């Protein structure tokens, strides 16, 4: 398959996940970006993480060449790790990315949109940690 790497944004808040996806799309020039799918909050609209929403978002983002999963904190990290450990819950080639949520999402989407492979997307997102703000 010749799809682009997909990106999933897992936040405790649906508003945060959706807004970060919009921000990343905007900063990637909008238009025809790689898939970026928010999975925020619980299915009933509350704060928290939902394994079911994450699994669905990963399926939607999957173009057959890998999915980079960015997470915010606590149970978002643990839920994705637990799903990956199950082996059959997330698409083949799904990877949890150790990256800052907002900066990582932008770097990942720019790289995936430009046709980078999963390793390059993961590297770009992780490198966002190195950018100091002081």
């Amino acid at each position, binding site marked *: 398959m010749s799809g682009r790497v997909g990106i999933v944004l897992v936040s405790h808040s649906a508003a945060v996940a959706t807004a970060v996806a919009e921000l990343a799309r905007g900063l990637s020039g909008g238009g025809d970006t790689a898939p970026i799918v928010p999975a925020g909050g*619980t299915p009933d609209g*509350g704060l*928290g*993480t*939902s*394994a*079911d929403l994450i699994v669905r978002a990963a399926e939607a983002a999957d173009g057959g060449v890998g999915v980079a999963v960015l997470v915010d904190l*606590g*149970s978002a990290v*643990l*839920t994705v*790790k*637990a*799903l990956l*450990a*199950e082996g059959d819950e997330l698409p083949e080639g799904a990877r949890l990315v150790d990256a800052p949520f907002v900066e990582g999402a932008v770097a990942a989407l720019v790289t995936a949109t430009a046709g980078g492979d999963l390793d390059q997307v993961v590297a770009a997102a992780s490198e966002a940690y190195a950018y100091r703000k002081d």
Partner: protein
Amino acid sequence: MSEPTYDAAFFRAWLEGAAAAVDREADRLTELDSAIGDADHGANLKRGFAAVTATLEKEPPATPGAVLATAGRQLISTVGGASGPLYGTLLRRTGKALGEAPEVSRTALAEALTTAVAAVSQLGGAQLGDKTMLDALVPAAEALGTSFEAAREAAEAGALATVPLQARKGRASYLGERSIGHQDPGATSSALLIAALAEVAA
């Protein structure tokens, strides 16, 4: 003389007992969690275990391993807080370690639980003494090698022993020294789970 063994119905009864205990103690768990966490532990676990009970009633799995694996998957998908993937991993890994045996001994369960507790420790990056569910689960898994009752006592003692500890994992760790003096909600719910096991076995 060979050890007594326990079948799928025993494990369903355990989880039903655990669901009832979580339901009964949900307010206390939430109260503990409101002191050092985000005040959702009781409600989250109640929702998770209610889903577990409903799933096990609808399609009762045939082996102890399958009962626990199915229950674990339900917890991961319905709890919504960190306790979901942690308890989900605990039950799933225990289930997987038990394999497809139609009946298992207490010794086999103790070994499987020990493996699963190690997986939980790895998932959350926590150790004994970090003021987490592991403070109840690690001694309980070890004591289960002796008896169900010993496991219950070890889990309860472990949960009580979290009071003077400073939290080093999870949201409570942000509180630093202010987490001292409060019993850990995760260790408390773990003790409920092990007590429910001892009750069905009695």
